[in-house]
């Protein structure tokens, strides 16, 4: 031991330390200037680890499902009643959607309008999720072989949850909307003044609620306003449902809802309504002027009447066992993997 201490305490031993610190600083600067090299290495590692991740995912998912079933067994009856009610409501919404779709088709035919580009999807499984202090990502089992490309939107049953930022041959890394680096242009449809859409930037901050920034100062957002992708910049298609506006809890701005964590709920169930916040759910199938949807979502109790323009949007939290990459005119359907 004494010998080792002497080795470390020799003055010449300080030289590698300085070099190593310099190398580490160079790595930081190099990563900032050009992260492509590191990204390629990451993708190679992830591709290589994909079978192991898929193998590891099954028992973890099984344990989670088993633990969830223990708690849920006591509330099966209530769940059943709630699901029946929700099912009935969704059937009514489906009828409304069909009526509105027919109307849109008729208008488009009358106007000889160019139809919207078809969005193709690739179904993929979430085989891993990294929830680090400065990072909210997940790994999908679809890569370049499945025509997944960086920039494509990733959706689960509730709407858009992120976008692909790295693709390997068989896997992709997804940056979630809640990630610190996530910034996407969104459109906010007012639930009060129908037809007035507000453009904003949704920025992630590693919390469950991304923030809506760059909202014009003259605009008042209301809890329950629907947030969709605006399509500005051409990277993402417009109109992808993202979530709803909830009042910001800071400084008496209201409360924010929390989406269920990954691996729970199968990705299909909406998050429970937050206290004083807004309910997350599918956007209404029609904007202003359409038929009144049955059982409209009431304004959330406790939401401020005039919240400040800066607000948060619920959603963006990955919960899905399955996700799909979408892009206008993008990748074709290659395969379907159910959750």
């Amino acid at each position, binding site marked *: 031991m004494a010998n*080792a201490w002497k080795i470390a305490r020799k003055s010449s031993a300080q030289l590698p*330390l300085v070099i190593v*610190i310099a190398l580490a600083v160079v*790595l*930081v600067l190099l990563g*900032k200037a050009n992260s492509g090299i590191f990204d390629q290495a990451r993708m190679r590692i992830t591709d290589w*680890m994909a079978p192991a991740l898929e193998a590891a995912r099954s028992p973890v998912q099984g344990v989670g499902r088993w633990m969830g079933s223990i708690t849920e067994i006591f509330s099966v009856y209530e769940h059943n009643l709630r699901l029946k009610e929700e099912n009935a409501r969704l059937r009514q919404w489906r009828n409304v959607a069909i009526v509105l779709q027919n109307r849109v088709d008729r208008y488009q035919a009358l106007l000889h309008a160019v139809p919207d580009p078809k969005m193709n999807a690739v179904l993929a499984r979430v085989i891993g999720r990294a929830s*680090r202090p400065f990072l909210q990502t997940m790994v999908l089992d679809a890569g370049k072989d499945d025509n997944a490309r960086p920039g494509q939107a990733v959706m689960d049953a509730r709407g858009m949850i992120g976008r692909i930022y790295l693709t390997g041959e068989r896997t992709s890394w997804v940056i979630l909307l809640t990630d610190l680096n996530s910034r996407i242009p969104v459109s906010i449809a007012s639930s009060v003044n129908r037809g007035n859409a507000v453009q904003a930037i949704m920025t992630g901050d590693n919390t469950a609620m991304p923030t809506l920034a760059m909202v014009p100062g003259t605009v008042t957002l209301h809890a329950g306003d629907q947030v969709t992708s605006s399509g500005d910049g051409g990277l993402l298609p417009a109109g992808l449902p993202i979530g709803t506006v909830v009042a910001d809890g800071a400084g008496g701005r209201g409360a924010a809802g929390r989406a269920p964590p*990954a691996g729970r709920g199968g990705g299909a169930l909406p998050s429970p309504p937050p206290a004083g916040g807004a309910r997350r759910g599918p956007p209404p199938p029609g904007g202003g002027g359409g038929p009144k949807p049955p059982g409209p979502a009431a304004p959330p109790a406790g939401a401020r009447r005039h919240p400040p323009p800066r607000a948060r949007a619920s959603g963006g939290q990955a919960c899905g066992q399955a996700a799909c990459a979408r892009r206008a005119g993008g990748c074709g359907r290659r395969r379907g993997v159910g959750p």
Partner: protein
Amino acid sequence: MTSLDRSAAPTRLKYLVALVPLLCGLAGAVIANIPVSLLGGLVPPPLLALVPVYFWCLVRPDLMTPAATLVIGFCEDLLSGGPPGVWTLSFVLTYVLVARQRDSFASLSGAAAVLGFAAAASVTCACAYFLIAALYWHLPLLAPILSELAVTVLFYVPAAMLVGAIHHRIVGPLRSDI
């Protein structure tokens, strides 16, 4: 010739054993960064790679060299998916602190040893936090990094026991003249 072979085999073994701290650090980075969470992502994974760095920096600094720390930190960066170099620099700076204050850290035992590791881990997390703040030009939330620190300290005791066992069984007996 026979005697030469006999002496060469243990030397090779010694050099292999000298890699054990580095391999433990790399294994810690890999295990902590497997993107599968038992708790559904509620709790961040611990910085398991920091435990071998801290442990062998105190016990055998000749085996846990600055270069080995750099490699472990780089592996952590590569696997965690964050901006490259953040954990590398944080690990190296922590190594510098621990190496400079080796007398103080090495004399700790029991709960104080955990506190000593907590102090080192705090330095790592603080470095990473401020590096991220500098790279993204705004201060991230403190809660996630604090929870990562808490989880890392929580995992220190079992991880240190494992690392200690590896040290005593594999590295310890051959520590004389590597």
